[in-house]
C-alpha cells in the first residue's frame, strides 16, 4: 500500500507546493486574524488534493493496470485515504505558522491556535473522505469534482449546525465541540470507506 501512497504523493507534489503558496498568501492577506480561522482554512484547502490524484488515475486508467497486476482493490481505496491524510498536516502547519506570525507579540493565544488547527484537521478529514467516496460512487473524477463542491458545502453547513446543537445540548467548551467533531469524523471515515470499497469492488475497469 505504501507504494501506492508514494505514487499519489509524487503525483500531487506540484500541487502541494502551489497550494502551500496559495494557502500562505490567502490566509495571510484575507483571513480575519482575530479568530484564527486560517488554522481551519489552510488544511481544508489541502483536502482538495485527493481529487487531483483521482484525476491522474482516471487520465491514465491506472487502476486497470494496478488491478490487473493483482493489487487488491481495497488496498487501492485505503491508499487514497492515507495519501490524502498525509498532506493535511502540511496545511495545518501553514495555517498555524501564519496564525503565530500575525499574532506574535499581539495577544498570541497558542491554545486557540491549537484548537482551531485540530478543528481544521478534523474538518479536512471529513471533506476528503466525502470527496474520495464521491469519486468512487460517480466513477468519474470530473463529475466528482462538481458534485463534491455541493456535497461538501452541505456537509460543512450540517457539521457547523450539528456542532452548535451539540454545544447547546452538552454544555459549552471547545473540548466538547472537538469530541463531537472527532466522533463525526470517525463515523464519516468509516461510512465513506465502506461505500467506496463497495462501489469500487463492483466496478468494471
Amino acid at each position, binding site marked *: 500500500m*505504501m507504494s501506492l501512497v508514494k505514487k499519489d504523493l*509524487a503525483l500531487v507534489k506540484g500541487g502541494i507546493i502551489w497550494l502551500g503558496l496559495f494557502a500562505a498568501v490567502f490566509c495571510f492577506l484575507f483571513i480575519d486574524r482575530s479568530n484564527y480561522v486560517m488554522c481551519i482554512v489552510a488544511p481544508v484547502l489541502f483536502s482538495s488534493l485527493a481529487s487531483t490524484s483521482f484525476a491522474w488515475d482516471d487520465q491514465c486508467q491506472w487502476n486497470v493496470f494496478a488491478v*490487473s*497486476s493483482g493489487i487488491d482493490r481495497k488496498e487501492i481505496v485505503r491508499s487514497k485515504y492515507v495519501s490524502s491524510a498525509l498532506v493535511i498536516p502540511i496545511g495545518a502547519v501553514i495555517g498555524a505558522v501564519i496564525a503565530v506570525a500575525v499574532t506574535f507579540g499581539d495577544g498570541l493565544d497558542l491554545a486557540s491556535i491549537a484548537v482551531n488547527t485540530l478543528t481544521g484537521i478534523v474538518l479536512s478529514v471529513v471533506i476528503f473522505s466525502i470527496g474520495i467516496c464521491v469519486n468512487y460512487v460517480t466513477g468519474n473524477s470530473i463529475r466528482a469534482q462538481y458534485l463534491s463542491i455541493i456535497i461538501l458545502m452541505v456537509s460543512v453547513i450540517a457539521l457547523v449546525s450539528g456542532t452548535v446543537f451539540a454545544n447547546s445540548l452538552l454544555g459549552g467548551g471547545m473540548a466538547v465541540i472537538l469530541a463531537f467533531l472527532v466522533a463525526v469524523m470517525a463515523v464519516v471515515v468509516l461510512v465513506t470507506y465502506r461505500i467506496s470499497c463497495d462501489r469500487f469492488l*463492483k466496478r468494471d475497469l
Partner: protein
Amino acid sequence: MDNAVEIRGLCKSFGSFGLEDVSLDIPKGYVVGLIGENGAGKTTLIKCMTGACSIDSGEVSFPSGGRPEVGDIGIVFDECHFFPNMSGAQIGGVMSGMFPKWDQASYERLMSGFGIPLDKKLREYSRGMKMKIQVAVALSHDPKLVILDEATAGMDPAARDEFLDIVMGYMADEEHTVLMSSHITTDLERVADYIAFIHEGRVLMYGTKDDIMENYGIAKGRETDVLSIGRENIVSIRRDGYSVSALVKDRKGVGEAYPELVVDPASLDDIMVMIIRGDVA
C-alpha cells in the same frame, strides 16, 4: 498438462455485446495467441481473467486456487497506463513497492537495452518507448504469466521484431507462460504455440498453431461444388462475385474427397478474414 489459467464457461455481458460461454486453457510454459478482429472481446476476456472486470458466470482458475498473487501476472496493454509526468526511475520506484519480487537491476538492464534513459519523463516517450517500458516493468517482477494485449500495435517492424525476441527470451525458461492477443497474425505465427480465435465474444477455434496451419484450408470453386462439402466440414463461407471460398477444418481430407475443388493452405490471416468477412457456418 499443467495449465497457467483455466477458463470455463465464462460469460460477461455489456448490453448488446458480451463474452459467451468462453472456455480456454492457457497451458503452462507455452505462448498462446489470441486473435480476433477489433471488438471481438480479446481485451474483455483479458480483463475478466485478471479481475479488472467481474464475470456474470463461469470460472477463471489459477494454479494457486484463488486469485493470483501480486506479481504473478505481468501485463502489457496497448495503451500505457503509467503517469506522463513520471520518469522511468520514478515508475521503477513505484513498481518496486508494488511487486514483492521486483528486480530493480533487471528493470534498469532492460531499460538500458531499450535505450530509454531513466530520467526521461514518460510524456517525452514515443509510442514504441511506452510499450518498451511496460515490457520492462512486466518482465522485472518474475511473473509466471505475461499477458500482452495488442502490445505490438503501432510498432514499426523493427521494434516488433525486437519485442518478439524479448518474448522468446522470456519463454526460454519453461516455467513462464505468455498470452498474447493481437490482430497482427504474422507475429503469432512466429511465436505462438497455441492459437485461440475469438469472434463476437465466442471462441470459435482453439488448438496448436501447427495443427491449425496444417489442417485448415480454403476451398475454392463453384458454389454448388463448395457447398457439397457439407456444413460439418465448413467453418465459414465467403462469396466474391462469381466464386465461393470456404474455410475448411480438414484441408487434406476435403482435397482428396473433392478433387474438383482447389484447396489451399490457410494462414492465420486468411482464417481471420474468412471468419470475419464470411458467413460462419
